[in-house]
Every structure is written in C-alpha cells, then in structure tokens.
C-alpha cells in the first residue's frame, strides 16, 4: 500500500467538531484585529472581492464597529471579468448598508498602459496586482484588510496578521516583523502600507460554520445551480464569453457551486447539490481536495506560484 493509498483509506472526520466556543474565540480575535485597524491607522480600507471570506470579514467589521458605523470604505478590484451575480450582489450590499465603495478597474490600467495583456482573453487574475497597487496609491491607503486565511496555501501559512508592504507594495517574506502577543507593530514610513488579515486562523470549515451561524448572505453562485461547463484536466470549467469551449470539447450542464469567487477566467465550480450553508458544511467535511487545488487554475501552475505572486504585491 502506498502512503497515498494509506492516507485515503484512513478514517475521516465525520463529525462537525466546530463548536460555539470555538467560533466565539475566532470571532473575538478577528474583532480585536479589526479594531486595531480602525484605531491605529489614518486611511484604512477593506479589500473585498464579495466572495465568502471577504463577506465574513465585512460581517466581523460591522460587529467590531457596532453600535457605531463602519469607519472605513470598501475597495473592490474589478477585473472586468466578473461573475454578474457577484457584481449585482456587491451593488445591493453597499446600497443596503450605506458603506462607501472604491472600485479599481483593471480596464483603466489597460487604458493607461500600465497593464498590457498578451492576448485579449488572457486570465486577468495575475494583473489585478497592478490595479490594486494603483488604487492604494491614488487613495493613499495605509492599511488594507483582506480575507486571506493561512490554511489556504503554503505561502499564506507564514504571513503575519499585520503584513508589511514596502513602497512598491511588495511582501518581503524574509524580513517579516516578529509579531508578539497582540502588540502589533503597526508603524510605517511614508508610502508603505499594511495588509491585515483578521481571519488568518480560520479554516474553510470555520468560515462555513460562521456563515451558517450568523446567516451571512452570499452571492447565489456559492450554492447549487445548473451551469454549462466543460470537463478539462479534472476541473469543471464554466462556459463563458471569456472561457469558450475549445475545439472538440463537449459542453455539459451540471449541478455545481463555486467554492471561491475570483476572476471568471480562472475560477472553476465543483459538482454539488448543496443548497445552503449546512449542506456545504456537510460537503466540506467530506471533501478530500483542498479549496484552492480544486478550483483555481492559477495556483496549479506550480507549487511556488502563490509565493511569487505575493512577493509582487498580490493579496
């Protein structure tokens, strides 16, 4: 028996071990980190893709501010290749909660010539970094809150909660500041900024349990729906204008949901009939493929892909 077979045949966690105390602990830690941002920076903002992780962060931010109002704007990097369900969710969300939204358009960077695409249908995901850094500079943001989690990926496992970025927006993994107790060193020089990750210590299962407990509303594509897809290299690739079928490929209609919401050109759904958060929790417990591996084409390129992009200023 190979080690892989032994691993797969080992017993699986079948019980949902996430309890209320555990979620409260994570909630308190996140609220505390968010209040550091509210109180400790001049021009903070929340970076929001309106995916589930950033919506959990927004929910926590509103709790951290309660009974006061959210003291910082939201920032969305619009690649121009978005799922329409996510954009309409975004617009309804900011209207309902009355929060200011700053949008950085990738198309603006292309028009300015700061982004040049190799071909029109190229994945826009890696180019987001440029638009994001331009948006940060234009608005002089000194702290950007994000929904990254350390369990997502190896490079993220090493990132600090308050992660320093130099004046070029770069992460220096070798020169990270030691982070002691909750005494965060938030001091920066002109032009530098921090990325702040309040849900660093949450896992995918924690996020879904919290969404279920708090009734957090998500874009509809997180739950089962019928969609035209192509089966390509073990992934279900959604059929869109940007990702059309290639010659010889068969388009099929499947019951699917998305586990992450990114640029349309590199985000794939998984086969699922989960209609609500509780169904997703049941599926997550049974899942044997980690989140990014199953759904993100960009990270599969190679093992060190994320670390390289992060060093360049990706979030």
């Amino acid at each position: 028996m190979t080690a892989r077979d032994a691993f797969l045949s080992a017993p699986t966690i079948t019980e949902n071990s996430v309890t209320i105390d555990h979620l409260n602990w994570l909630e308190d830690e996140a609220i505390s980190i968010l209040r550091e941002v509210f109180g400790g920076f001049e021009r903070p903002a929340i970076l929001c893709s309106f995916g589930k992780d950033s919506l959990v962060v927004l929910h926590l931010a509103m709790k951290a501010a309660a009974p006061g109002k959210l003291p910082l704007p939201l920032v969305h990097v619009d690649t121009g290749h978005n799922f329409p369900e996510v954009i309409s969710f975004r617009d309804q969300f900011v209207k309902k909660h009355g929060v200011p939204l700053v949008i950085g358009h990738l198309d603006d960077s292309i028009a300015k010539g700061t982004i040049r695409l190799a071909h029109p249908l190229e994945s826009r995901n890696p180019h987001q970094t440029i638009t994001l850094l331009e948006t940060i500079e234009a608005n002089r943001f000194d702290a950007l809150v994000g929904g990254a989690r350390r369990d997502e990926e190896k490079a993220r496992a090493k990132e600090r909660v308050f992660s320093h970025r130099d004046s070029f927006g770069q992460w220096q993994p070798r020169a990270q500041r030691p982070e002691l107790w909750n005494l965060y060193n938030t001091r920066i020089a002109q032009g530098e900024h921090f990325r702040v990750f309040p849900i660093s210590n949450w896992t995918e299962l924690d996020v879904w349990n919290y969404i279920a407990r708090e009734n957090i509303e998500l874009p509809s594509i997180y739950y089962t729906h019928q969609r035209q897809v192509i089966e390509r290299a073990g992934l279900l690739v959604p059929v869109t204008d940007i990702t059309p079928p290639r010659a010889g490929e068969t388009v099929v209609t499947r019951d699917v949901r998305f586990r992450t919401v990114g640029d349309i050109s590199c985000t794939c759904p998984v086969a699922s009939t989960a209609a609500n958060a509780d169904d997703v929790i049941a599926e997550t417990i049974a899942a044997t493929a980690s989140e990014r591996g199953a759904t993100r084409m960009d990270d599969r390129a190679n093992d060190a892909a994320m670390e390289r992009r992060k060093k360049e200023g990706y979030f």
Partner: protein
Amino acid sequence: MSPHATALTPPLSRTAGEGASRPLRFITCGSVDDGKSTLIGRLLYDSKALMVDQLDALSKARGAQSQSGKLDLSLVTDGLEAEREQGITIDVAYRYFATPKRKFIIADAPGHEQYTRNMVTGASKSDVAVLLIDVIKLDFTQPTLTLLPQTKRHAALAGLLGLQHTVLAVNKMDAIDFDAAKFARVVTAFGELAASLGIHAFTAIPMSALDGDGVVAHTERTSWFQGPALLPHLESLQLSEARDNTTAHIAVQWVTRDQSDDHQRWITGDLAESTLSVGDAVSVFPSGATAVVAALRTGRGLVDCAKPGEAVAVRFDRQVDIARGDWIIAGNADARVLTQKTQAIIAWLDNAPLTVGRRYVVRHGARWLPARISAISSRLDLANGQWRDTDAGLDDSLPAEVNANDLVRVEIEFAQALPLAAFAKSAALGAFVMVDPGTNATAAAGMIQ
C-alpha cells in the same frame, strides 16, 4: 500495525466548563533534524488535515520519498520556495487541524539558533510548548545526561513567555530501541532544567514521529509507558484566560459613537485577566477619571458580564476623557500603581544590536511611547540555562553587546509612568514591544519582572 489505522481517537464525552472547546495553540520547538516537521506532518496526516492535492504536490516534490519508501511528511510544513531548496524551515508557519474533540493551531517555529526571534513570535501566541528532544544527539554513555544547548534555550523561552503547559516530546525512540531507562534519564535531566527555568510542570512522552508511535496513540513498542500519547494529551488540556489575584483591564483600541439618536460613546478593546460586569466601577489611565460600566457588548451582542479574552465595547455612566492607548482598570483610582522605571527581561530580535541609553519606541497595551534601556544586569547563558551577571562586561566569557537572539535582564525607563505588572501576573500589563524608531523594525519583546 499501521499507525494510520488508529488515526483518530474516538470522540470522548465533552468535558463541561468554560473554554473546554476553545482552540488550543501550541508551538513546536526543535531543530532542523529533530523530526519536528515530521511530527507536524504526522499530526496533519493522521488527522486528515492534509488534502489529496497537497499530498500529490508532496509526492511530486523533489526528494519526497525517503529511502525506505515512506512519504517524507516533513515536506508538508516547508512553505517557502527557498526553504524547500535548502531543506530548512526559516520562518514561523501556522498549521490547522481538528479532531472531533478540539481545534488546534500549530505555530511551527524554527529551531536554528539565529531564528530564535521566530520562536519568540510563535510562543507569544501559544498556550502550550511542545519541546522536541532528539535522543540520537544525546550521549547516554556519560554518568550525567547533558541536554543540548538549544533545548535549554527553548525551555528558557517557554518558561519566560509563561506558556500554560509544557510537553517534552522525546523523539526518535525507535533509534534507541524504545529504551524505557534512557527515556527516564531524559525526563530526569529535563526536570532539573525545568525547575531552574520556572517551568513548574511538564509532561514527557516517548515517541517516534516518523513511525507514529506515541503521536496519536501508543503502540506495542511504547506499551511500557503509562502516560498519554501526544494528541489525546493535547485534546485534554484545560486552558484558562483568567489569572489569580488580578483585576480586569482593557487596553483601549478605538472609541466609537452609537448610530442611534443619543450618540453615546462606546470604548472598545480586549478584556484581560478577569471578568467585567455592568455596574462595576472602573478608573481610566492616565486621566484618573472614574466611572461605572453602564453597558457592555461582545460579538454576540449586549451582555451583563464579559469574560477575559473577549473583545468588548463598554459604555460608561458618564462622560469620560478617554482615547486609544488609555487603559480601563477595574476598581477605583486609588488602587492604581504607576511605574516609570523597572526591571524587565528582553528578547532582542533585531539584527542591529541594542544601544543602551538610546530612545526606542515601545508599545504597551495600545499605547506608543518612548523608552530607553538604562542598564543591563544579567544575560541568559544558553549553554547551561543560567542567568549570569554582566556588570558592564566584567565577565569576559560573555560578550558585552546585546545581539539578535540574546536574552537579557535590563532596567527600562519609560517616558511616563504606566500601570505595569509583572508579566507572570498579567500578560496584558506585563508585556511590551520595543521598536527601532529609525527603521520601524521590531527590536525586542519585553516582559516586566
């Protein structure tokens, strides 16, 4: 029997009581080849926290198969590209796994000497220290067993940082035929060291992280050992946020106003050390103003009583001058003891050495203020875990300069008197961080004595 067959302990009945199910954070301390990464890989693997694609990436990685054909579990934790090439862990990585009983957060800290700062970082956010001993490196032929300098360093740090529990993972027992007498000698040697470093209790466990003995369960080879295996032990540990004989404190993070018509001010921060209830009298540092708690909120909404460790928002019964950096202290103002000059232990973290007399910026609670080190009284000699007087370098066996990874006892003078407490009594009032005002680098972690 394959250790994987016993991968998960059956869920035991949940013990009732406060904090029974809060996540347990532990730091693993050991050097590159003590089997630390293998131990973590083993825990993740046996608890199925590894996913298939992670496992596949592992199988693809160069050198993943060891000569015996076993998967090299140590590769699981080596996150950064350069590290994979060098085969060493160079920074703290956080790992997550859960059993039916508990969620765990592992701070995987490097054991190599120049990276002590990362261990301090990881330990400051941990409840439990798991110290690895590599029995292959010990000389059992000597009448008195000598532990490695790095074990002394790790134990000293664990003791200083006041972790709630210490576990001694006596690893690679397979290499010494699971010899119970040799295990006992390691425990005796560590017991003497622990006593000298302020570690009052520890649990020693014989194991082979490579083969799985003693990690999730004991095997026939460790059947002579009466204690628990590592994972069931970690599952059962009780954690406490409250300290004895301390009053509630809040380092004020941010002040907001109610969105309702009355625009009442709410003061936010983390509640430390003790509970706080509506109706409690408090005083404010530095203004000295007193007030009564009129309302309390946590993430769960309005509450009558908040527990230590909770992120709270407080409304007072009257207008009080208060801002970020101030303290809310339970009790009346007369109980406050303010200190400006005191003894502390600092772990120096910056590559630039400490300059005595120089103004640094210090963070205490949410307050930033200038401070300087006025004298160095002793330093920890890591060869034997003993504190030795420095007396301005009279002891020529120790260098006078304080460099990265050094631990020294100092006199520190703050720019203003603060509500300080010994770190052992209150982590909230007793901890501080020193920052180089020129580079903004985090220069030192400090603990008031």
